[in-house]
């Protein structure tokens, strides 16, 4: 397994600044997808609060909304989904670290609708690695990198944040 750093700490920080800059409203509703998306949402929240925005935060674990139960058993350690605000009528920013097939985003949208009917959902991702299998696109993308199918693209949050590519097998 080989690891390559695709984007260094500096680039990731700038991408996060750019994502936060794209969000303009007095009240912002951020929903992060566990676990990487929740970290990115936290980082964006700090930036928005420095600008003086009021931020409402939620997190989703989409394990129970996956479409592949027939091929893999449910993962035992599922983090709790929590949307501590009423989603009905809100403009929601859905946040994830890496956008790939789009299946996670579909599942997350399903889960949000189980809490209520938002006015809108927009997607913000730190990295778009290509390879979409569903008609889903991000409103705001921090970084772009066209990765091959046999690779994973990951946000590394131990120490200074970087984006790494790993070859699987």
């Amino acid at each position, binding site marked *: 397994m080989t690891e390559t750093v695709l984007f260094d700490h500096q680039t990731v920080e700038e991408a996060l600044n750019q994502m936060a800059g794209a969000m303009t409203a007095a009240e912002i509703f951020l929903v992060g997808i566990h676990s990487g998306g929740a970290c990115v949402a936290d980082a964006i929240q700090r930036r928005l609060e420095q600008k003086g925005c009021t931020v409402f935060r939620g997190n989703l674990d989409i394990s*129970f909304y*996956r479409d592949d*139960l027939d091929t893999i*058993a*449910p993962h*035992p350690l*599922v983090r709790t989904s929590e949307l501590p605000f009423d989603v009905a009528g809100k403009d929601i920013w859905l946040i994830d670290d890496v956008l790939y097939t789009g299946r996670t985003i579909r599942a997350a949208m399903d*889960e949000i609708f*189980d809490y209520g009917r938002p006015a809108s959902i927009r997607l913000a991702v730190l990295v778009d690695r290509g390879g979409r299998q569903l008609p889903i696109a991000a409103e705001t993308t921090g970084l772009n990198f066209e990765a091959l199918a046999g690779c994973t693209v990951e946000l590394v949050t131990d120490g200074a944040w970087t984006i790494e590519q790993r070859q699987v097998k």
Partner: protein
Amino acid sequence: MRPLKHLFGIADLDREQIEYLVNLGDSFIEINRRPLKKAPTLRGKTIINLFFENSTRTRTSFELAGKRLSADVINISASTSATKKGETLLDTGQTLAAMQPHVLVIRHSLAGTCELLADYLPNTALVNAGDGAHEHPTQVLTDLLTLKQAWGSPEGKVITMVGDIAHSRVARSHLLAAKKLGYTMRVVAPKTLLPSQIERYGCEVYHDFDAALPGSDAVYMLRVQTERLTDSCAFPSIREYHEAYGLNVKRLRAAGSDCIVMHPGPMNRGVEISTDVADSAKSHILRQVEHGVAVRMAVLAALCGGHAEEKKEGSRKQLSDEAMQAQGTLL
């Protein structure tokens, strides 16, 4: 982890599988507390609850578990089933299996019912929701989730179980789980309500409730199953039973300030448990009921998930010793 094809009892599970189901159940608690209690995990799956014995809470719990995960759930009770018209258990099982459900949840008064049916229903996952005096695995998984929330882990703790140990499938399942997870079972009952060879489970046996209380981390009261005891002379009177084996505030105090109270329900207030204890802050009884739905969601999701090919194990062809022994208790 070994994949789960059926859930016959705690006897068939290893520690890893037990902890997997309990942890997965923990994750499902949150869905049950949402305003909209629905996740699409089991969409398109069919679950049949086949209850030959009366049950309100277990059946409701399984039904809610299936429905909240978007499965289609059918309930059949013996009083309305073809069993009344003379159909055999095997025919009922095969008839229902021919309708292609993914999971059959079965409660029956005979030990080993699921194990017996499994040989004839190769394509259906079977869940034991209580078979005679044999096992009640989902109740024990439920209790383990309640204990996880209370203590983190049951390892090294002492659970004192009081009442009709001989006829209790909950007791048998706990005795088996205790060995696998490393907690101590202390059983308390008059000799008439203990099964023969109780020593083989490696538990501590007491006949005096007061002597068993010190050092208990949980007191687990069993219901006096009057429907199973009508003809026997297990104890002289309800009042005398309450005096000797009922949990009251004084006894609870003797067990120590951190001791919690559990009961699988339904409770007989004034028989095995006094009202003030049942309603006290130490009582985890309603939490057990809440966790029951979450654990059953976990069991159904685990049985429906994963590769079908991995699960084609050889059939057993005969009842386990545990089931034979449990059936013997009743004869």
